[in-house]
């Protein structure tokens, strides 16, 4: 059996798992509902795209990014800012002030950088930079605060945020990529070119900060009050159920209207996501095969040698770091579109950063197909480990008394098995099969 055969079989196996999920309730693991199977598939496709982005950074260039959660959340914010209708009156009340304040803030930082570059080093320069920063900060806050207050006062129960541009929601996906790319540029400029650990720490930090902003800046994202009812690229289930033509067609296939409408919408998303995934996968494959991809791998394998050949290592690293983060941003926007709500409270590093890492490592770092496979497979396992854990604990504790405190505690904490299992999987794969399921050629 050659390699291509083996790798195709792995993808087929994931497909079989999804079909089993849709058809059988055997073993207490599968749910036997196509609805649940498609839900898993949709999130799996999004995870695969994220894994593709991370693979670009890690597999191609050896960059360790632990801030994927932040880039994903920025993608989510992009959906709100692009596709929500603008809140009436928000622009006049405070939007202008906020935009001016943000420009002021940017100008302050720019002026500080100019001062740093133009003035001769010494006490004068330090004082000048401090003065610019303090003055800029005071002006920024004086401009920003009233604007924020005014916007948050507009109908706080439902809105209280600035809203968006009211553009088609599909447009938000590339915008999400752009936002993430911007954040990645800032981080990359700071931490690349230093030791590899520093990039890890810096990305960990920026992710926490992006999340803190989303949770606390109510005027922007409604904070923990969540933005709900985001526009969708597909029709609503209720509308489909009220459409006689649709109901008729569903009946001819042997479905009732409710099931058919949910399946229709989920299949629609699955198609959209597959198209994006295939386009990105094709692009990543082309990049990998191109001279650019070869240069990237040369840099990864021996930075000194690549440098000696005249390659600007830091600049190339910055480039690929931005590209990879942008892909994560696109995936984040897609996920928020799928949920049709932005819930800053639900982002946590475990699910949005480290799980993606497990996907890349298990799938095979350095191989795009591996990353996609890892995304689909590990997502399926992630969903299924919990019922499995409960099952396992039930078996283990079957001999104990019904009212035993230990048994209750074990059953209650079974959910935390996920963390433990994911860590174990990561360590085992790194140790015994560091090249993953589909290794780099």
């Amino acid at each position, binding site marked *: 059996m050659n390699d291509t055969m083996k790798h195709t079989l792995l993808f087929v196996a994931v497909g079989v798992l999804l079909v089993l999920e849709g058809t059988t309730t055997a073993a207490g693991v599968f749910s036997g509902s196509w609805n649940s199977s498609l839900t898993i598939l949709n999130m799996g496709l999004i995870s695969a795209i994220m894994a593709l982005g991370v693979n670009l950074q890690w597999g191609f260039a050896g960059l360790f990014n*632990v801030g994927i959660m932040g880039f994903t959340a920025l993608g989510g914010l992009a959906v709100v800012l692009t596709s929500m209708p603008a809140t009436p009156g928000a622009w006049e009340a405070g939007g202008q002030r906020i935009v001016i304040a943000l420009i002021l803030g940017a100008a302050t930082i720019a002026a500080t950088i100019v001062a740093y570059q133009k003035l001769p080093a010494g006490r004068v320069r330090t004082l000048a930079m401090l003065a610019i920063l303090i003055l800029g900060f005071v002006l920024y806050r004086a401009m920003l605060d009233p604007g924020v207050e005014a916007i948050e006062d507009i109908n706080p129960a439902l809105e209280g945020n600035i809203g968006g541009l009211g553009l088609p929601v599909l447009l938000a996906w590339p915008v999400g990529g752009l936002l993430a790319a911007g954040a990645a540029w800032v981080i990359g400029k700071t931490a690349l070119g*230093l030791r590899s650990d520093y990039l890890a*720490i810096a990305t*960990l*930090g920026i992710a926490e*900060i992006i999340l803190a902003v989303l949770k*606390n800046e109510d005027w922007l994202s409604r904070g923990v009050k969540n933005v709900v009812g985001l526009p969708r690229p597909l029709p609503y289930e209720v509308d489909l159920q009220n459409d006689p033509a649709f109901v008729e067609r569903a009946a001819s296939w042997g479905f009732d209207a409710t099931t058919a409408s949910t399946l229709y919408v989920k299949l629609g998303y699955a198609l959209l996501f597959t198209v994006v995934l295939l386009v990105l996968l094709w692009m990543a494959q082309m990049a990998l095969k191109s001279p650019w991809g070869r240069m990237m791998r040369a840099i990864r394998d021996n930075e000194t040698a690549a440098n000696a050949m005249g390659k600007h290592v830091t600049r190339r690293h910055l480039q690929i770091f931005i590209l990879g983060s942008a892909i994560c941003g696109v995936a984040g926007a897609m996920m928020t579109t799928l949920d049709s709500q932005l819930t800053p409270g639900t982002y946590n590093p475990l699910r949005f950063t480290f799980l993606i890492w497990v996907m890349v490592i298990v799938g095979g770092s350095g191989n795009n197909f591996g990353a996609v496979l890892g995304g689909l497979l590990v997502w399926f396992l992630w969903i299924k480990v919990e019922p499995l854990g409960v099952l396992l604990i039930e078996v283990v504790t079957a001999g104990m008394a019904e009212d035993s405190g230990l048994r209750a505690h074990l059953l209650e*904490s079974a959910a935390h098995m996920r*963390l433990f299992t994911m860590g174990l999987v990561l360590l085992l794969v790194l140790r015994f099969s560091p090249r993953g399921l589909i290794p780099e050629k």
Partner: protein
Amino acid sequence: MDFLNAFVALSNFVLVPGIAYGSQLALGALGVTLIYGILRFSNFAHGDTMAFGTMVTILFTWWFQSMGISAGPLPTALLALPFGIAITMALVVGTDRAVFRFYRQQKAKPVVFVMVSLGVMFMMNGLVRFIIGPGDQRFSDGERFIIKARTFKQMTGLDEGLAIKTSQGITLVTAIIVVALLFWFLNKTRTGKSMRAYSDNEDLALLSGINPERVVMITWLIVAALATIAGTLYGLDKSFKPFTYFQLLLPIFAAAIVGGLGNPLGAIAGGFVIAMSEVMITYAWKKVAGYVLPESLEPDGLAQLLSTDYKFAVSFAILVIVLLFKPTGIFKGKAV
């Protein structure tokens, strides 16, 4: 009088909490920096090592409390601390044997070590949540305050009160003792000297007959002790929650890098720099300003630079500035 009041208010809300938090961060950063100096990677599992040590200490504390053992006015956790340290040492050395040693023999790249430590972080995190649950735990007992705000007001006749919590006092005293012991160990004992030699120049140390495995093991033992102490002190002062300990990673890393990775003295300085900036930037200065400034200049708002939700942004901003201008840290560290 106004000036005194301002100073007391400042001490109460900024200096005392800042010093306590700074000592906790310094102890945490010392652990990170030691691992970096000897094993040459950033240990992402450090926050969860702290959580594990604290959890064991809490479990022993509860056991002691149920048996009626207490330390009088001091928290029972201090009695439980040695047991917590011992068990954490066992766990950490076991982890090193089972996980990290393999990669050391392979001479793997530092970034691989970082990833592996990520896996270890996962497992420890899962273990802690599995045993004690993800919720908040309070385990401090004994006397709550060394000085209460009201007593202080009566004693001095000032308008502002100064409260010092027992946990804050204990934090500072413990931190001083631990740091003194550590520096004595590193500078005066034979083992400590061999550790520094190994950290400075691995090959030369090997040539002069230093056993690397022994150095590594002793490092892990010290790190386990530091992590457990730092974690328990933080838990006594605030409260114990596994996720908070994971989040402490960022300020701890920032402290270690600001001071210079691999430099113990730097870790302590870094801890205080980060803690003080965090507290000062998120503190509402209105009260202090009200005492010091003439009435016409008094601020209308709270005079708070950033809301407390952004305290991580402070450590991050400092980290970025240091990385941009002085990547080796205040005290020359090893890494660039």
